[in-house]
């Protein structure tokens, strides 16, 4: 049995598909200056192998948390405050993603300097695609997340 220290305040993302923790961490904006514990390929009864990400002192915007579902659809998010679990929820695939991703089409109006516009993508399942509401360009799977 592997023991990893509990965090006092922050976010634990559990049940990440094996080997995907670093992608999830990148999506969350990287470790920055916070303490992050990453457990990779931990034996799991549900998924054979899973990754776990513990981020001390980090609370992530909910819209961003749901983007985890694009990488690891079975992940669960645990919010820890004063050493106690205050919220646990699965990530759910959003139907629309607004403001947190950048369109990769350099000509898209959302990439034009100073125009008052926020990026917006509709999410389509099977196959997973993100479609820019403005330029209509389709992006496959997680291409926008890892860019």
């Amino acid at each position: 049995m592997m023991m990893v220290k509990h965090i006092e305040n922050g976010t634990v993302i559990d049940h990440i598909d094996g080997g995907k923790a670093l992608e999830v961490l990148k999506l969350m904006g990287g470790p920055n200056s916070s303490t992050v514990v990453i457990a990779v390929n931990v034996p799991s009864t549900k998924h054979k192998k899973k990754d776990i990400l513990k981020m001390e002192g980090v609370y992530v915007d909910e819209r961003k948390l749901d983007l985890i579902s694009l990488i690891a659809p079975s992940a669960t998010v645990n919010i820890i405050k004063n050493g106690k679990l205050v919220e646990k929820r699965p990530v759910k695939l959003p139907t629309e993603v607004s403001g947190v991703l950048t369109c990769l089409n350099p000509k898209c109006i959302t990439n034009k300097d100073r125009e008052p516009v926020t990026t917006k993508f509709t999410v389509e399942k099977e196959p997973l695609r993100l479609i820019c509401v403005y330029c209509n360009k389709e992006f496959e799977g997680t291409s926008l997340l890892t860019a």
Partner: protein
Amino acid sequence: MKDIISISDFSKKEFTDVLAEADKMHSALQKGKALDTLKGKIMAVMFFEASTRTRLSFESAMNRLGGSVLGFAEPASTSMAKAETIADTVNTVAQYSDVIVMRSPFPGAAQLASEVSSVPIINGGDGSREHPTQTMLDLFTIKKEKGRLDNLKVAMIGDLKYGRTVHSLCKAFNNYFKGIEFTFIAPEALAIPNEFKKGKYHETGKLELEDADVVYMTRIQKERFADPTEYEKLKSVYKITPKILETMKKDAIVMHPLPRVNEIDWRCDSDSRCIYFKQAYYGVPTRMALIQLALRGGK
């Protein structure tokens, strides 16, 4: 209101209504009948990119309806030259007009304009994204010349990757009409994007037009190439000549959104199947119908 941003904004009924209205406008124009249904209304044209047919046919359409027109044909003469944003320019022009027709090189600009404008926006082409009013006039042309919009074999040729008229037309056929069989003819570098490959289609690099009811030729667009040598390699890859016309069906039609460079030999112009200038005329009654639709009810 009705902003006209994408061809997908139309319901099947609206499609049918616009085509029926365009037909009425066409009849009135043919009879030389003066219309003044939009007397007192002002249409602004904001063209951030070059255009001959779209801008002039819109202006002609508004004049034919008794309305008036103001605007600009290139951004250099506006405060855009002083770094004003598209959004602020649209917001300002909306104060002076009842409807705005806009063309921009930036995909999504028309959508942004519709979000900031207090008057309806008609998309006159936004980069490589869409050109919905061209699609409407293309459909009107096919309806008038072939008598139907279902059960057609349609050959699309040329720049199928960046050609917005191609994209919008594919969308319309896929969404609203039945029995369409596409042949996509393009060099590999300009192949039709996957999102438009729906229904019955086949792709080829050869100019195979024997079965086509509708031949939709497009220009290889120099302005969409970052690398000029790539353009040079591909610019003359397909050409419709009198010899090619001989291989085609007697009742086929050859369309082109124009301008052409050298992809249709001028010697083809006298062949009655080559209807691209008539297609340009159909832009007027179609846009008369669309301006009225946009203005109906205000915003």
